[in-house]
């Protein structure tokens, strides 16, 4: 199948996707006016989204796009390799980036000092380019480089939340320490793989490992380092300590962007390494999936959901909920069956959309009224009805109410667990969904059922979020409904991804 772009653009799309935001970041950094920088960032993300959409169309039906950088043919040169597994993630990242940039037009006015706004957009574009690079590249060391490019830009962005809340600095520092350890673990793993196979190209690596048959000791060590390193990056349960702070105190647009994309890109890498580079049918890998990823996923679902219930800061509630949702995805991965993988993958996409909408709405509450605590949600449904409606739709989707995207992925996950005979997992999904009802319900109850607070005897006046903010969150909220009612497209993408993972078709 082919995309809608033709000729040169279509062929060069994989590399344009990464190069364009990187160049624009450099240009943004020297722009004297922050609005020009914003415009550049917006146009860049928009073009990237179009390119990513084209790539998704091009990779349908098990097509693989391969781009040899600088004409050095793989496996010697760096190859950008896009198939059904990474194309949807690239589309998710660029679509969320467009929405977050639009949102940042308003939110930066309140959060970032004027002098720092152009660098803010530059750092945002660098983080964006890094995430896209991580996703599209087919070279294991290149993954590490892009991982660090996006991470370092992200530390800066989180730290920029300091003008709003000084704890942003501390959170950024903790994220930096843990993120660097994670990336270093990953690169140690890649080093061991390179020792074993003598190649850095992931497809070539998979071939070489397949020829070797059983996993050697060196590959086992490599696998362990890679899983732990990526686990840190994707906030796998016991390694999630950086996440709540980083999500809670960074600028609101960045929170939404991180929540919707950063952990997802790392999760994609886990998919890529566990299923296509290594062979999950081998006993060592299979046992890790069942006894490590699935079990940690379930524990994470419980512990993080419980923690979310006891938070007073709404941003931290959603952050802990993110950790719990990562648990669902890991559970899907841990099953290792086509159905489970597909469910985990759909949940990855859906959760990106849902969490994006939730954090954008939460940012709008802060933008208008400075609200961050759950206890301050009283009467928000009356004073910001549109924003609160979008928040509510996304919250229902997060819980998994039928007719929303969250239901589709959770149901698929239940189905997969049942077919696998994992009844404990079925129970865990149901119970944690009830916990989700509690922690999201607290906010919804306060917002819709309680009266608006009064100032000097008069109710607070109604002030809706500005239009650019509303557009973004409503696009995501509508997507959460559309993918719930007509789930064929994301499910088709996820099935394609599962096929790539299990077919060994790298």
């Amino acid at each position, binding site marked *: 199948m082919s995309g809608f772009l033709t000729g040169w653009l279509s062929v060069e799309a994989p590399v344009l996707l990464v190069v364009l935001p990187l160049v624009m970041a450099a240009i943004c950094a020297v722009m004297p006016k922050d609005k020009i920088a914003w415009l550049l960032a917006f146009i860049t993300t928009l073009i990237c989204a179009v390119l990513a959409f084209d790539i998704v169309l091009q990779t349908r039906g098990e097509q693989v796009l391969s781009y040899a950088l600088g004409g050095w043919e793989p496996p010697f040169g760096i190859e950008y390799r896009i198939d059904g597994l990474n194309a949807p993630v690239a589309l998710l990242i660029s679509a969320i980036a467009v929405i977050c940039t639009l949102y940042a037009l308003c939110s930066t006015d309140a959060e970032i000092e004027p002098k720092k706004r152009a660098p803010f957009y530059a750092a945002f574009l660098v983080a964006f380019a890094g995430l896209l690079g991580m996703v599209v590249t087919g070279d294991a060391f290149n993954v590490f480089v892009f991982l660090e490019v996006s991470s370092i830009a992200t*530390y800066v962005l989180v730290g920029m939340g*300091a003008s709003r809340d*000084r704890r942003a*600095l501390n959170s950024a520092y903790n994220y*930096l320490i843990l993120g660097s350890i994670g990336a270093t673990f990953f*690169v140690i793993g890649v080093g061991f793989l390179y020792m074993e196979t003598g190649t*850095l190209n992931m497809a070539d690596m998979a071939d070489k490992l397949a020829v070797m048959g059983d996993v050697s000791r060196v590959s086992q060590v490599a696998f362990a380092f890679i899983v732990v390193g990526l686990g840190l990056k994707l906030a796998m349960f016991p390694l999630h300590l950086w996440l709540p702070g980083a999500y809670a105190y960074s600028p609101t647009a960045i929170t939404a962007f991180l929540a919707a994309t950063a952990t997802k890109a790392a999760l994609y890498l886990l998919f890529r390494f566990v299923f296509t580079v290594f062979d999950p049918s081998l006993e060592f890998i299979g046992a890790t999936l069942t006894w490590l990823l699935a079990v940690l996923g379930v524990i994470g679902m419980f512990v993080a959901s419980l923690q979310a219930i006891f938070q*007073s800061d709404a941003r931290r509630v959603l952050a802990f909920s993110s950790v719990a949702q990562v648990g669902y995805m890991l559970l899907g991965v841990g099953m290792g069956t086509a159905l489970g993988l597909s469910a985990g993958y759909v949940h990855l996409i859906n959760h990106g959309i849902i969490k994006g909408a939730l954090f954008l709405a939460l940012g709008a509450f802060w933008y208008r009224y400075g609200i961050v605590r759950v206890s*301050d949600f009283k009467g928000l449904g009356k004073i910001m009805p549109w924003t609160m409606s979008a928040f509510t739709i996304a919250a229902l989707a997060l819980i998994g109410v039928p007719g929303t995207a969250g239901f589709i992925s959770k149901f698929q996950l239940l189905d997969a667990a049942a077919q696998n005979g994992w009844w404990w997992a079925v129970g865990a999904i149901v119970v944690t969904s009830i916990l989700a009802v509690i922690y999201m319900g607290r906010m919804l109850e306060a917002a819709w059922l309680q009266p608006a607070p009064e100032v000097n005897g008069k109710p607070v006046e109604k002030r809706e979020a500005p239009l650019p903010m509303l557009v973004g969150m409503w696009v995501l909220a509508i997507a959460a409904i559309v993918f719930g009612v007509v789930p064929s497209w994301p499910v088709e993408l996820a099935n394609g991804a599962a096929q790539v993972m299990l077919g060994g078709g790298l």
Partner: protein
Amino acid sequence: MLSDLLSHFNYVVVILLMMTGLYVVFASNNLIKKLVGLSVFQTSVFLLYITMGKVKDGIPPIIEKSYDSHGDGHGGGHGDGHGDAVTHGADAAVKTAEVLYSNPLPHVLILTAIVVGVATLAVGLALVVRIREVYGTIEEEEIDRLNYAFDIDGIEEAMEEDAL
């Protein structure tokens, strides 16, 4: 046992550095010392990569006398780390078959990793400078205490607002 350790001397050093670095990151309370630990940890990885690039009896991968030939080695090749230096062009492989080169690729990778490490360190130090300015301390426990106090104050403020 001892001869095993000695024959894998580089790896022993790598492990020692790695563990030292990680221990310093986790055990120290001072933000700067944590960054120092992180740097030591990253450096151990550099050493690991450089070690794997060495081919026994291999010479530095600079092709002499033949600046004008095909195989002047840009790009290098992916050696398999077990002894053969695989260069990019087939011609070069024939020409240089009698000379054994060390594998240059890990060095190139580590150059990138060093740049990444420097960037991380710079961002980390910048954050510490800002933390010192805002919190007045770089001791982690003290910062946690201040954050906790801030949380409590925040709640009290909120309660006062409710009372008004």
